[in-house]
């Protein structure tokens, strides 16, 4: 488990990210993306700082953070595997590959392995539907997955 940042340090870095985006119309999502890029997740300690800067309530910030699938409340693993679970990938045997990957990694979707090596997340369409099944591993897109490639991915992220 990674040590979480001290709250004063989070507040200071959050304030800097807010300052970068505060001139935008509707800055909350860009700010939250900036925070997730910085910390790898959206720390609880960042929320009151944002609320204060944007003059909205803590509840509103909490509501937005929890509405969107992208914002993590906890740090992700060192590797993030997003496997597409949508129809086009289903039609090419995606469900079986998903089950295989869960078994190989020993975790389910939305979970991080105990050693912090990998987080497994579902994606609902990566737009790679003509080369399904597809995945994104640490930002790199992969098409035409098969059992062999899934095994490779599992080996790579657990190394």
């Amino acid at each position, binding site marked *: 488990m990674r040590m979480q940042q001290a709250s004063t340090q989070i507040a200071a870095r959050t304030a800097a990210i807010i300052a970068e985006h505060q001139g935008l119309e509707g800055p909350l999502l860009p700010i939250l993306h900036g925070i997730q890029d910085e910390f790898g997740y959206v720390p609880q300690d960042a929320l009151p700082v944002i609320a204060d800067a944007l003059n909205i309530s803590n509840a509103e910030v909490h509501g937005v953070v929890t509405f*969107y699938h992208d914002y993590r409340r906890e740090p992700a693993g060192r590797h993030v595997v997003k496997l*597409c679970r949508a129809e*086009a990938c289903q*039609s090419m045997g995606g469900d079986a590959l998903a089950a295989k990957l869960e078994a190989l990694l020993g975790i389910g979707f939305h979970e991080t392995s105990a050693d912090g090596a990998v987080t497994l997340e579902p994606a609902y369409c990566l737009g790679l539907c003509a080369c399904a099944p597809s995945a994104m591993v640490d930002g790199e897109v992969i*098409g035409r997955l098969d059992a062999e490639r899934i095994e490779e991915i599992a080996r790579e992220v657990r190394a």
Partner: protein
Amino acid sequence: MTTIYIPRDSGSLALGAEKVAKAVAAELAARRIDAKIVRTGSRGLYWLEPMVEVETSNGRVAYGPVRPSDVASLFDANFLAGGEHAKSLGRPEDIPFLAKQTRLTFARCGIIDPVSLDDYRAHGGLAGLEKAVAMTPLEIVQTVTESGLRGRGGAGFPTGIKWKTVHDAPGERKYIVCNADEGDSGTFADRMIMEGDPFVLIEGMAIAGIATGANKGYIYLRSEYPHAVATMNAAIEVARGAGVLGSGVLGSAHAFDMEVRVGAGAYVCGEETSLLNSLEGKRGVVRAKPPLPALQGLFGKPTVVNNVISLASVPIILDKGAAHYKDFGMGRSRGTIPIQIAGNVRHGGLFEAAFGMTLGEIIDEIGGGTASGRPVKAVQVGGPLGAYFPRALFDTPFDYEAFAARDGLIGHAGIVVFDDSADMLSQARFAMEFCAVESCGKCTPCRIGSTRGVETLDRIGAGIEPETNLALISDLCNTMKFGSLCALGGFTPYPVMSAITHFPDDFRPREVAVAAE
């Protein structure tokens, strides 16, 4: 100097285009050959990607699908002069999948360097915007209306009428919002345009701005498309530097600028009102209509919300005229539609054609049947909210009204093919489950109905009172269809009911289904 074209859209990258490009560069260096590598978007023939093209004296010659291990032998075969190789495809324009298309919106996609404005101009880009700056806003609106262009996001609302409403709405501040939240499985046309020809979208948005009096545009782009985000941002920067965007669009008195906003993984934000809430920095909850976004949209101001393909189709309409565009198509579906053929299909990719081809022609002739070689069981048209069509309905022409008449929808024109191993009860259950996960929670039929739908389908699967539960699911779908605030709850019944109607055998108690096989 010879030019080699290698795609770099995310589809090609997912198939190894980066490694191929590196291998080509390494061979060029090792063989001391002076040639230029240009990275393009994809032509959309994904079973041939990565497709490498070389400029020869006879035009471009294509090779594909190229693996990094093919590269040395391509050089040995003198591919830089169009030499024969096992991966030779000849002239790309002669490949039947491309030859049969009518590429209006995607005319440049896969051919040019996406972020080269010179390339864009050299291939007819900016001609529409140049005409638009010399026209009155109403003339532009009139041209778009006459072209018959309808919203390509799925709703099929006439684009010109939407623009007229925003044009007529009073207000100093107006917005053009491009809906690039292409969340439907089986669709990738928006992604391909943004990664392969981003200037056409910028041009279309600038024309929309001039036509309606809006001087600010936003592209709401889903976070699942990081490559599209990067390419769009790079193109906007170039357009701004060249005076295509800014205080005087192409030197005119019209001001227009735009920025990309990245979504955060909520499918429902593809619905226009929840998209607007998301842009404002709120939860992506659906708004009741009226008021229409055209009158009270982003930050309460008059707002055009159009899909990527709608906006990207505008430049050619302005350039070639409304009649040219309108001449393609059938009935009230005018122009071309980029059909995305996906899933379990042999020749998957993007096929832009005039409306009117039948589903059977698209799947069997263009798509070449399933990738697995097994019979086609069902195709889902229009994303997760679209109906499943059996082979018996393959005579349906690709046309908004024809699909509606058969309880289906074109949506964003994505088609996902399933072979006979598909279990339609599972697919129906997935539709309900997806709706439950992605529901914004504002209206009851969608929020609660989807969960009850999953439970009811599970009971049918377990053989518990199948007759009663089928009647119940039909009643529930009726409530969701007519009682939901937006298309998420309102259209989830399409995949569910079409699966039940067209594939009743999959909904019988499991033991019976097994015994019947």
